[in-house]
């Protein structure tokens, strides 16, 4: 109780979230009257990031930096434009489709929103879209980043659940595609209601030329997947191989990548990974004291009195996660909830840990788009200057279809498991 209060107070004063978790953990140890835990505290923080699977995170972020520096993002947008540009609401479709392509290279939602908002929002504004809507839509496009492989969150989940990283990454493909389709349906409907503008018309010949000249960007995801399937690398190492592929594409095909930029890219990738990884460390120490205080056990006992079958458990899980996700989302949300919920899911309700992972990850990704703490909106706001709160309101239908996807994933395990051998 005291811990919760301490957490709320420091958070509202504007203390960074990672530190809020660290401070709440200290308060919890003081309140629990077990000061011995203070001796273990630094080691638990260290141990929170002392995990092989997490290596993938800096590498995934580095690929994004190289890709962006090599002008590859812009070409992916062109590629998407050639497919759907001249429809009504063309640039909105382009936004989602380009986000889907980019998702096959990038692993994190916030990084993706940062990159895509810089490109898509000015373009959409030029064509007459409302800036707030454009920024909000890009934030939802970023949702695809951690759902379609590669994915930082699936990596973190597989580390915690001790399931195969590849299985988890593959499990995200079908849900990612369904989400893309659902988003496009919303755009079609909203485009009809609000009369979205069309993009410039391209002749079929222009389209084919664009597709041919931009297709090599897809070499990067192909190299990533190919190095895994070919036995060259595991899912983590494939990220490093992918970074090399991104350098080659950027250097010899788009010719925009310069080695002089590499140190800055390394620096940015390092800092942005530290933001994520420090949250992982903070969440580890926080969940450690909670587990020590048997909060998960008590929660499990309570859940069993409420949920009588797997379906009601899954729906309850979704509700709980959506509530938690308003404040604690993404990777930290994962780290706080999985140790509590996963054992209940697999042992008591017999749910496949991979299906459960997909539901939890998608839910907590959606948490990145729910107020008051919605990192994707914050990032889109930082890049474009639009207001996060307004973004949420004008894009509510996208939130709605995301919830529909969550229900589908909860009810039908096959949507997550069908591609796993």
């Amino acid at each position: 109780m005291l811990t919760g209060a301490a957490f709320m107070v420091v958070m509202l004063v504007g203390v960074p979230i990672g530190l809020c978790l660290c401070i709440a953990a200290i308060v919890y140890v003081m309140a629990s009257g077990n000061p011995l835990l203070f001796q273990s505290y630094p080691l638990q923080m260290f141990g929170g990031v002392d995990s092989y699977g997490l290596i993938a995170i800096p590498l995934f972020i580095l690929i994004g930096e190289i890709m962006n520096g090599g002008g590859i993002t812009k070409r992916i947008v062109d590629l998407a434009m050639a497919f759907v540009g001249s429809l009504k609401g063309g640039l909105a479709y382009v936004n989602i489709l380009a986000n889907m392509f980019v998702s096959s290279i990038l692993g994190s939602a916030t990084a993706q929103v940062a990159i895509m908002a810089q490109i898509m929002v000015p373009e959409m504004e030029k064509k007459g879209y409302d800036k707030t809507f454009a920024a909000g839509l890009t934030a939802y496009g970023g949702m695809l980043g951690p759902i379609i492989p590669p994915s930082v969150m699936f990596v973190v989940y597989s580390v915690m659940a001790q399931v195969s990283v590849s299985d988890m990454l593959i499990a995200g493909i079908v849900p990612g595609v369904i989400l893309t389709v659902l988003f496009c349906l919303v755009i079609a409907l909203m485009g009809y209601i609000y009369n979205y503008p069309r993009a410039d018309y391209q002749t079929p010949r222009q389209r084919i030329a664009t597709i041919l000249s931009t297709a090599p960007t897809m070499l990067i995801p192909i190299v990533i997947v190919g190095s895994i399937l070919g036995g060259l690398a595991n899912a983590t190492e494939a990220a490093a191989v992918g970074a090399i592929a991104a350098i080659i594409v950027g250097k010899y095909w788009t010719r925009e990548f310069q080695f002089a930029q590499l140190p800055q890219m390394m620096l940015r990738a390092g800092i942005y990974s530290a933001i994520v990884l420090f949250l992982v460390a903070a969440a580890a120490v926080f969940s450690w004291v909670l587990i020590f205080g048997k909060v998960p056990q008590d929660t499990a006992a309570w859940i069993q009195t409420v949920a009588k079958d797997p379906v009601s458990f899954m729906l309850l899980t979704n509700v709980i996660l959506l509530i938690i996700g308003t404040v604690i989302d993404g990777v930290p949300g994962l780290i706080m909830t999985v140790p509590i919920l996963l054992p209940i899911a697999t042992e008591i309700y017999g749910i496949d840990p991979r299906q459960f992972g997909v539901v939890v990850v998608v839910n907590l990704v959606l948490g990145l788009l729910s107020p008051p703490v919605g990192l994707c909106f914050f990032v889109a706001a930082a890049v474009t200057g639009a207001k996060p709160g307004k973004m949420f309101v004008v894009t509510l239908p996208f939130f709605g279809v995301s919830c529909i996807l969550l229900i589908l994933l909860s009810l039908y395990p096959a949507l997550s498991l069908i591609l796993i051998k």
Partner: protein
Amino acid sequence: MVDQTIATHTPLARPYRLILAASTRLLAVERLLIMGFMYLLTALILLNVATRYARVPIYWIDESAVYSVVWLTFIGASAMTRLRLDFAVSMLTERLSERGAMIAKVLSTLAVIIFGLALMTMCWLWMDPVGLARAGFDAREFAGQTFNFLYTERTQTLGWPTWSLYLIMPIFAVSMTIHGLANLIEDLELAPKASHPSFVLSAVDGVN
């Protein structure tokens, strides 16, 4: 660099100047280390792929890569503090008056400093340098006296003493506190906000 930014302002008291200068030096070192660990990590992973493919796998690479990431995390987290880059909730603070916002800012910076000091204390309890000195820097003797076996442990494949890797925790605690103090001096408007031109962090910058 610090001297330039301060020159335009009223002269600062000596302790403030020292803290700001220390924070700036520290940040410059952290910048190099962050880049260094990223290069190291990438090189280690690619080396692992290459040597395994060539059927001469190197045993300690995984462990080195993992510890590179751990150091990267905490060095980056320290730098983040000075750059004010971490994600925070602004729903309350952005509704406050200018004076209220300044108070909130000072309070949140104080929280950073308090956590830094707390972490230092916890590292002190854990690493117990005084106890170690009392045991004549003999790890076994120390373990016998205190039940603290920290200095007798080694990592599994590198075989390094684990305490050398754990040192990042006290380093992080100290550097974060210094950055926190530097931020506090700026928050109290005792010195102008320093810019950090060697960090070009376009995207998420200013989210805080």
